């Protein structure tokens, strides 16, 4: 009897679901009309963070499924060596780093976009990689070693499309010219490297600090016991 109360609608409102569906569907429009699309995505509120999250999730899922289901002729992976958390991080971390670094730089460079919008733009730009990626993964299992070129072709196509879309997104979101977009994107990549470097330094400092106190404690312990 009590189970009946647990309906989907009690968690998610119908309006939200409607909006989510509409904004997700909008990603299909965006990839074919990048300039209009990305402009409206933020300025006309035709995209949503929920849909962006879902796209990132699909992309993450694709990358994980690829490990297992891509033909070993394409990617020869030793599954015993795979660490799922590392795989997840290697997809999520670059996206987040990109967004933070891009937002950081564009704020200094008269960019109009906010962090949320940069994230949405990046996530929506992943759409072609997702759409091409899943069928391509299945296709790889029907190819011989000579035909792997087809797989690589589609894979590269998705990648190039993605890069083009990201550039278009940044252009529209920040209201930049093309040259400024390219310049800010290069700076963003440098910024990502700097962030990673600082994180590594930070963690190694912290661990050195902890090690210092641990050895101090041990030293005292040896003296008194």
């Amino acid at each position: 009897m009590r189970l009946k109360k647990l309906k989907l609608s009690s968690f998610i409102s119908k309006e939200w679901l409607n909006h989510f569906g509409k904004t997700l569907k909008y990603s299909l429009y965006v990839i074919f009309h990048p300039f209009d699309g990305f402009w409206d995505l933020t300025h006309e509120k035709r995209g949503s963070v929920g849909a962006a999250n879902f796209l990132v999730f699909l992309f993450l899922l694709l990358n994980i499924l690829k490990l297992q289901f891509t033909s070993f002729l394409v990617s020869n992976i030793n599954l015993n060596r795979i660490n799922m958390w590392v795989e997840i991080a290697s997809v999520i971390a670059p996206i987040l780093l990109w967004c933070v670094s891009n937002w950081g730089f564009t704020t200094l460079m008269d960019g109009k976009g906010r962090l949320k919008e940069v994230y949405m733009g990046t996530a929506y730009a992943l759409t072609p990689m997702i759409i091409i990626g899943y069928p391509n993964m299945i296709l790889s299992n029907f190819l011989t070693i000579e035909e792997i070129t087809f797989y690589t072709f589609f894979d590269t196509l998705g990648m190039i499309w993605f890069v083009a879309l990201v550039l278009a997104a940044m252009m529209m979101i920040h209201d930049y010219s093309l040259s400024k977009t390219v310049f800010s994107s290069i700076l963003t990549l440098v910024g990502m490297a700097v962030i990673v470097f600082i994180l590594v330094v930070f963690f190694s400092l912290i661990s050195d600090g902890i090690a210092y106190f641990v050895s101090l404690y041990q030293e005292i312990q040896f003296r008194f016991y």
Partner: protein
Amino acid sequence: MRKIKKLGSLLAATAIAVSGIFSFPSDTVFADDASTTYSYTYDIWGDVQNSPDAYRPTKHISGDMFEFEDADGKATAKNFVEPQGQFIRGNHIFVCDTGNNRIVEIAYDGKEFKGVREIKEFHDADAEEPLTLNKPYDIYVTKDMEMIISDYGNSRVLHVDKDCNVIKIMTTPDVTPFNDPEDARVFQPQKLIMDTAGRIYVQAEKINKGLLEFDTSGNFTQYVGASPVKFNMVDYIWRFFMTEKQIEAQPQFVPTEYNNVAIDSEGFMYVTMSTFEEAEYRTANPVRRLNSTGSDILVRNGNDPPCGDLKYDNAGGYNGPSKFYDVVTFDNNSYCCIDQTRGRIFAYDFQGNLLYAFGGIGNRLGYFRKPIAIDRMGDSLFVLDAQYSNITVFELTEFGELINKALREYQNADYDKSAEYWNDVLRLNGNYDLAYIGVGRALLRQDKFDEAMEYFKTKRDRRNYSKAFEQYRKDQIEDHIGDFVKALLVILVGVWLIKKVRKIQKEVRECD
């Protein structure tokens, strides 16, 4: 009473559990611990996989086992002192007892080893006194039992007949760097072989121009098989910005020098070398097969090149990559290399796949200190150790024999028979990659494509898998093309029918 019994059984159970915990490390073999077994292979991922022994050490031969009469007629037995070379012809073993300036001939009758003679002096018709040896490094014996000896300390190579009468003597050749007055390098022949045409190839110390070739009359003809100069682009660019003095201080671009030479049943020379940058151990090609023009024709089709250990750690005083110091070849073009860094023997097949590796540094039977030479008598291996001054004899096991048989059948193009042997190998070692691929090949030839695919996929043989898959795909499409056409027809007819029905319905409605 019952309570006591219960208590007793509880105690016993605890005792068993505790003893189980404490005995755990001693009687458990961990699959990822390379040091727990004697033999191993590398799998497709370059990880060590323990393997049954392909060769088992059976005994040591040392110099004091053999008594020889000296000039006074007194029989004495001397240990070898730093022996550097050996050669096996038929069932006779010739050991270069370098430190004692003699060569010991040992015969093996299948049961025991007997000292035949001690070779110390040679008779030359031109010389008044008999010639003696000074640090003989290596010996080659022809089918007629003529001996070619590298007399390291006397800077010469002796060619003598079986009764020790000198046929010819090869002395310092008139060629750079020996005739260069500034260099004045001494000719120090170390390892040598004679090819089927009677030419002698000598590997001399500190010579990086290749092997010295002497013709049948003992004249030096040319250097053969110099390894190409390793050329580093970055270093080359740096050189533009250096002063003369800095360039002089830099290591020169020099070809590597060989440390040993052997000849296989087809008359090709195998050379080994151990002077290469540590980082380049996978690409340095430490073992090479030279053709008559001196180019390297060794087949390297394995997952990894024949370079000894693929992974190593610098522990226990044993640092750096494997350093090959000798090679022995088999009739089926397999070959074994001996590594002085970790005292291991690596066996490769004719395609360059690692068959098995075994040995180590230590002082038990089957372990070495400084293995310097490896030769074979039939299928048995004889490894000479320069520091232990003895020879370790290895006998082929059932496992090793099965591998040899499988390889032989494969080379005879009898793939099904080969697969049978590979199946037997798999029964003894389920981690043996080559066996899976061997079985897969046979299945492929029997048109059992899906099974073959399974075998190839297990060991990630991409090329063969692709071949099997292509056939499998073709079969599947041919088998099911009819079904596809039928399904398509059904769908088309269905769509047509629905449209027709809808049209009729519409007309009926309009009529109303």
